[in-house]
C-alpha cells in the first residue's frame, strides 16, 4: 500500500485547504439555505400583508431548525415500483452538482474554494448544468406518469434557457476577456465601472434566464402545486425532498453569484477605482450601524421581555459587525506598519460584505418577482425562451462585439467605452421590442375546430 498512502499524503499536502473549505461549506450550507427559506417566507409574508413564521423561536428564527428536524425524522417512503438505484441517485445528483458549482465561486478576493481556475465561470455554469439529471432521473424514478411529465418539462425548460443564459454571459465576458473569476472582477475594477452599465441588455437577459434556470416563478410550472401535484418531486419525501430543496436554493445562490461576479462587480464597491468616492468605503459599517440602531429602536415595541433582550442581542451583533467592517477603513489611519500585513484580510472582509450584499439584492429580486407575477403556461414559457430570449441574446452578442471593435478602433477606455456600448444597448432594446411585437401577432389560439353537439345526451 506504499504508493497509495504516498499518493494520499501528496494529495492532502497540496489540497488540504480547499478540502477543508469545501467540507465546511457543505456542512454549513444546509443551514444557510434553511435561513434563506426563512427570509423568503418573511418577505412573502411582508408582501402579503401578514407576518410569516413567528412562533418557533423569536420572530420565527428557529423555524428552519424545526423544519430540518421534521424532514430528517420523516419516514422514507419509496414507491413500490420505483427504480431503487435511480431513486437514490437523483437527489444526490442535484445536490452534488449545485454544491460542486459553489466551489468555483469567489466570495471575496480571498475566499475561493477552488483557487484560480482558468475556466472559472464556465466551470460554474457547466457543473450546475449537470443538475438537470437530478430532475430528469427523479421524475423517472418515481414511476408515475405525472412526475415524469413534470420532470421532462422542467428539464426541457432548463436546457432551453441555458442557451440564453450562456449567450448573455458571453456578452459580459467579451468585456472581461477572460474566464477566470478573479480576473473578471479585476477587469471591472480596471474598467472603472461594473459590466452591467456596459452591457445592460445582457444583464437583463441573464436575469430572466436565471429565473428560469432555477425553476422559480414565473417559470415554476413544473413544480407548481395547482398543476399536476408537485411534478418531479411528488414521490420524494423527508430527507430526499430536502435535498432537492437544498439544490434549488443553492442553485439560486450560484446564479446570483455568477451574475454578481460578471455584471455587478463582484466584491468591488460601487465605483471602485474612483478615488474621490473613497468615502463609500464607509458604507458597510454605517449600514450595519443603521440596522443595529433600527433594532434598538424596536426594542420598546417588543411584546415580551425575552424578545426585548433578543432584539438587543441582534443590535449588538450588528454593531459588532459594523466595528469589524470599520477596521479596514480606520486602521490604515492608525498604524502604518499594520497596513500592509492586514491588507488582504481587510480587503477580504469588505469584499465579502459587498459581494453578499449584491447577491442578496439579486435573490431579493427573485423573491419579489415570485410573489408578484402569475405563472407562465409551459408553451408560453418555451416560446418566451426560444422566440425572445435566445434571439435577443445572440443579437446582443453581435452588437456588443461590434461595440468592442469600435471601442478598440477609436481607443476608447474606461468611461469612454460607454460611447460605443450605449448605442449597442439601444439597438438591442429596439430589437427586443420588435421581437415582442412580432410575437404578439402570432400568439397561438386553441383550435376550436372540434365541434360538440350542445343538445346531445
Amino acid at each position, binding site marked *: 500500500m506504499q504508493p497509495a498512502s504516498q499518493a494520499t499524503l501528496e494529495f492532502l499536502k497540496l489540497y488540504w485547504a480547499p478540502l477543508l473549505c469545501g467540507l465546511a461549506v457543505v456542512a454549513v450550507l444546509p443551514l444557510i439555505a434553511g435561513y434563506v427559506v426563512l427570509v423568503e417566507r418573511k418577505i*412573502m409574508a411582508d408582501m402579503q400583508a401578514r407576518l410569516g413564521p413567528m412562533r418557533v423561536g423569536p420572530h420565527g428564527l428557529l423555524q428552519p431548525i424545526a423544519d430540518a428536524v421534521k424532514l430528517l425524522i420523516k419516514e422514507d417512503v419509496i414507491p413500490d415500483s420505483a427504480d431503487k438505484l435511480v431513486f437514490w441517485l437523483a437527489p444526490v445528483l442535484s445536490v452534488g452538482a449545485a454544491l460542486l458549482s459553489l466551489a468555483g465561486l469567489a466570495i471575496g478576493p480571498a475566499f475561493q474554494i477552488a483557487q484560480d481556475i482558468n475556466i472559472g465561470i464556465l466551470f460554474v455554469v457547466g457543473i450546475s448544468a449537470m443538475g438537470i439529471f437530478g430532475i430528469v432521473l427523479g421524475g423517472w424514478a418515481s414511476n408515475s406518469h405525472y412526475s415524469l411529465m413534470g420532470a421532462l418539462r422542467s428539464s426541457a425548460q432548463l436546457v432551453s434557457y441555458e442557451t440564453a443564459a450562456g449567450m448573455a454571459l458571453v456578452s459580459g465576458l467579451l468585456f472581461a476577456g477572460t474566464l477566470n473569476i478573479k480576473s473578471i472582477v479585476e477587469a471591472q475594477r480596471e474598467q472603472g465601472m461594473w459590466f452591467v452599465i456596459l452591457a445592460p441588455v445582457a444583464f437583463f437577459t441573464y436575469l430572466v434566464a436565471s429565473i428560469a434556470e432555477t425553476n422559480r416563478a414565473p417559470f415554476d410550472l413544473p413544480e407548481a402545486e395547482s398543476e399536476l401535484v408537485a411534478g418531479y418531486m411528488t414521490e420524494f419525501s423527508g430527507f430526499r425532498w430536502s435535498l432537492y430543496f437544498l439544490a434549488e436554493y443553492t442553485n439560486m445562490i450560484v446564479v446570483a453569484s455568477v451574475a454578481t461576479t460578471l455584471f455587478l462587480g463582484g466584491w468591488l464597491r460601487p465605483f471602485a477605482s474612483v478615488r474621490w468616492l473613497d468615502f463609500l468605503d464607509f458604507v458597510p459599517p454605517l449600514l450595519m450601524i443603521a440596522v443595529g440602531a433600527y433594532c434598538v429602536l424596536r426594542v420598546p415595541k417588543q411584546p415580551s421581555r425575552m424578545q426585548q433582550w433578543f432584539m438587543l442581542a441582534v443590535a449588538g451583533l450588528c454593531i459588532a459587525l459594523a466595528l469589524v467592517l470599520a477596521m479596514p477603513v480606520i486602521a490604515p489611519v492608525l498604524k502604518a506598519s499594520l497596513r500592509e500585513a492586514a491588507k488582504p484580510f481587510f480587503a477580504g472582509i469588505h469584499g465579502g460584505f459587498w459581494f453578499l450584499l449584491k447577491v442578496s439584492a439579486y435573490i431579493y429580486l427573485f423573491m419579489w418577482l415570485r410573489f408578484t407575477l402569475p405563472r407562465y*403556461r409551459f408553451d408560453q414559457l418555451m416560446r418566451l425562451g426560444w422566440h425572445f430570449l435566445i434571439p435577443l441574446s445572440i443579437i446582443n452578442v453581435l452588437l456588443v462585439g461590434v461595440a468592442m471593435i469600435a471601442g478598440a478602433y477609436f481607443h476608447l477606455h474606461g468611461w469612454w467605452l460607454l460611447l460605443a456600448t450605449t448605442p449597442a444597448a439601444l439597438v438591442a432594446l429596439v430589437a427586443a421590442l420588435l421581437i415582442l411585437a412580432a410575437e404578439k401577432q402570432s400568439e397561438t389560439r386553441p383550435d376550436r375546430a372540434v365541434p360538440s353537439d350542445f343538445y346531445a345526451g
Partner: protein
Amino acid sequence: MKAVSETVPATKGKTALSIETTSDHKTLLGADELIINMGPQHPSTHGVLRVKLKLDGERVIGSECVIGYLHRGVEKIAENRTYQQFAPYVDRMDYVAAVSNGLGYCEAVEKLLMAEAPPRARVIRTILTELQRIASHLLWLGTHALDIGALTPLFYCFREREEILKIFEKYCGARLTTHAFRIGGLQYEAYDTLEKDVERFCKDFESRIVEYEDLLTQNRIWLGRTKGVGILTAEEAIAFGVTGPVLRASGVKWDIRKAMPYAAYDQYKFEIPVGTTGDTYDRYLVRMEEMRQSRLICLQAIENIPSGPILAKVGKVLKPPPGEVYHAIEAPKGELGYYVVSDGTIQPYRVRIRPPSFVNLQAFDRMVRGHLVADVVAIIGTLDIVLGEVDR
C-alpha cells in the same frame, strides 16, 4: 416503465357524454390517447369536483365532470322541514355567498305567501346581498389568481373579505353561514354602526380594487394565461343556459336585477358590465366591474335606509296556500332559482333549487376543448363554481 394508457377503469352502461377509451388512435409519438383524472381531491378544483380529461399529448380533446361528491340531499330534506326550518339549509349550498341563497329562498316563500317584506327590510337585504356579492367575487379573485400562480392577490382579497365578514358577524352573529334573513323580512334590526361600517368599507374599497388591477389587469403573464382561454360565444352560452358573469362576459346583457328586479334594486342606479369575447379575461373584467357596481349600490343604499318595521306580518306558522312559484335572483355566480311547490301544509311539497354553478358547469366541456392541461385549472376557476351548490 409501461406507458400509461388508461388510468380510469372502464364502466359499463355509460351515458352519452362519457368518454370511451380508444386505443386505436395513436398520436405522433406512438402514445395512446390518455385519460387523466383530476380530483376529487385536488388543490385547484375548488371543492370535490372530479374532472376526467381526455388528452392528446397536452391538448384536451374531451372532458367529463363527475359530480355528486358533496350531495347531501338538501332538496329531499326540504320536504320534511317547515319553511322556516329549511332556511338555514340553503346557506350551506353556495357556502361562499350564503346571504344571497337566503335572499332567494325567503323571497320565493314570500311570493307563495303573497306577502311582501317591508321597505326597510328590502333595503337592508340589498345592502347585505351586495356586500356578499363583493365578498364572493373577492374569494373568486383570490383563488383564481392563486391557481394561475399569482400568490399575493389571495391575501389582499381576504383582507377585504375579512372586513365584510366582520360586518356580517356584527349583524347576525355568523360570518359564513349567516341565515341573515327571515321569511317576511329580517329578524335583527340593523346595528347602530351598520351604515358607518359599510360606508367606511366602501370608501376604502375603491383603492383596493385599484391594487388588484395593478397586479393583474395589464400584467403580460396574466393576459397570456387568460386571453383567449375558455371562449364561450353568446349563442353557446344561451344554449347551455349559462347565467351570471359568464353569460355577461360572452356579450349577453342579462341581469335579473335589472330584468326582473327584486328586493330594492329598482331604486338604485347601476351598470351591467358586459364583455365581448367571452374568454377568461373578459370574465375577470366583468367580475371586477361588478364589484365596483356593488360598491356603488351599497353607497346609494346606505344614504337612505327607510325607517319602519323589519318583518311583515306573516304569522308564526307558515301555511302558504297550495300553489307553486319560481323565483330567481342574481346570485354572485348566476341565476339562482327556487321553485317551491306548496300543498297547503306547513312543510313544502317540493323545493327545487336551480343552482347557477350546476348549469354553468355544463359549459365546461365546450370551453375546455382544444386547450392545454394548464388551462383546465384556469377554466374551472373562471366558471366560479361552488360544489356545495352543484351537488346540493
